[in-house]
């Protein structure tokens, strides 16, 4: 087990006052709250902060931790010495309302234990808490959103055994990805989260849909965008060109005098849904290189014969 430096985690000095620790926690909690933060590992960081604060905010736990931590550095191999907490008095078993204390590290548990909070509620009878909701992101391909798919997802679930130890169990679920899902949409699987405590119900599992980036298409909501390279004469004279779509190749008519950046819509060829998305083709005019005498001659001819000033609108 590795020693965790809670001061370092929270970025506070070892001599910080309780007020300073509280302020540091508030600041970090806002920064890393998984509902607010865009940092990729916000959830992990937020939990680490929570654990560090759980110890440092409580003068009794902090004193015990300071006593013990004097000779350790973060990451160093750590075993709590027997009877290390003798002489310190902890008021209560103290997790307060944290039904998800299982989220704390082994390091924390070896020092301050776990459980306890179920018995602590005393005469009012058993303690009930709804199980935690789990959140997971699943990456799907554009084709999965168009045709539907099923995915196998793996979750780490904390479990408490008869001795009160916490283990993580790997749980595998097969989940249907219904066709028509959009980027960022959430799928709720009721009762597939963490088990509750006492009579508390099971939490839910929320899956957030994210798309693997596609090398051709951009997806916005249910609409799909494709940048389509066209030759100058195809855009100028008009033509019929082949366009790759996720449902196969289609032919599209380009009207004469189409400019670069012109957006054309193929209705209903986006991601299906109550309101089916559209497929947009954005024309990108691709110039042939002037790398042969023939090509150069044609460009020269256009230069002399076409009275063309592309910067006319700029007044130069």
């Amino acid at each position: 087990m590795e020693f965790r430096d809670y001061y370092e985690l929270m970025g506070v000095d070892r001599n910080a006052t309780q007020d300073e620790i509280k302020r540091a926690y508030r600041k970090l909690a806002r920064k890393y709250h998984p509902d607010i933060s865009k940092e990729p590992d916000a959830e992990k960081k937020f939990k680490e902060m929570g654990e560090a604060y759980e110890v440092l905010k409580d003068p009794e736990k902090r004193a015990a931790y300071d006593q013990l931590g004097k000779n350790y550095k973060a990451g160093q191999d750590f075993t709590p010495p027997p009877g290390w907490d003798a002489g310190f008095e902890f008021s209560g078993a103290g997790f307060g309302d944290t039904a998800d204390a299982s989220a704390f590290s082994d390091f924390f548990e070896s020092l301050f234990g776990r459980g306890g909070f179920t018995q602590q509620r005393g005469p009012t009878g058993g303690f009930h808490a709804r199980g935690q909701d789990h959140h997971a992101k699943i990456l799907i391909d554009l084709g999965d959103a168009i045709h539907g798919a099923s995915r196998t997802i793996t979750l780490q679930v904390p479990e408490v055994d008869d001795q009160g130890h916490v283990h993580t169990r790997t749980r595998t679920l097969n989940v249907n990805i219904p066709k028509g899902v959009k980027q960022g949409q959430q799928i709720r699987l009721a009762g597939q989260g963490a088990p509750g405590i006492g009579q508390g119900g099971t939490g839910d599992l929320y899956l957030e849909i994210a798309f693997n980036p596609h090398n051709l298409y951009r997806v916005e909501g249910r609409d799909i965008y494709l940048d389509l390279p066209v030759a100058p004469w195809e855009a100028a004279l008009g033509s019929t060109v082949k366009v790759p779509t996720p449902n196969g190749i289609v032919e599209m008519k380009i009207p004469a005098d189409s400019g670069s950046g012109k957006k054309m819509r193929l209705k209903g060829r986006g991601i299906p849904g109550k309101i089916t998305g559209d497929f947009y083709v954005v024309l990108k005019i691709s110039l042939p290189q002037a790398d042969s005498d023939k090509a150069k001659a044609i460009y020269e001819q256009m230069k002399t014969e076409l009275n063309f000033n592309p910067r006319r609108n700029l007044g130069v």
Partner: protein
Amino acid sequence: MTRTPTHVLTGLILDEDSIFTLQELSVSCAVETEYIIELVEEGIVEPMGQQRDQQHWAFSGQSLLRVRKTQRLQQDLGVNLAGIALVLDMMDEIEQLRERLRRLD
């Protein structure tokens, strides 16, 4: 041949098409209906349409996500309901701006 698990779960997509009554929403979030009513009064979630009668309130799937977010923000950061209404609106706006930025890239 390896045996593959045959049981496939199907979830509910939380969007404008998934509809919850006041009761369903409070059960799904494990809160009292009074709590949801409080969130409606604060403008954090809004019933769809023009229903004045609470028995006929209909909430979209996104409301469920907003209620859960509200619960977490209250518990983890100690933000009050007015503050949460503001935070959620601003986060939506940031999301829209990010979307526009992505489009311009």
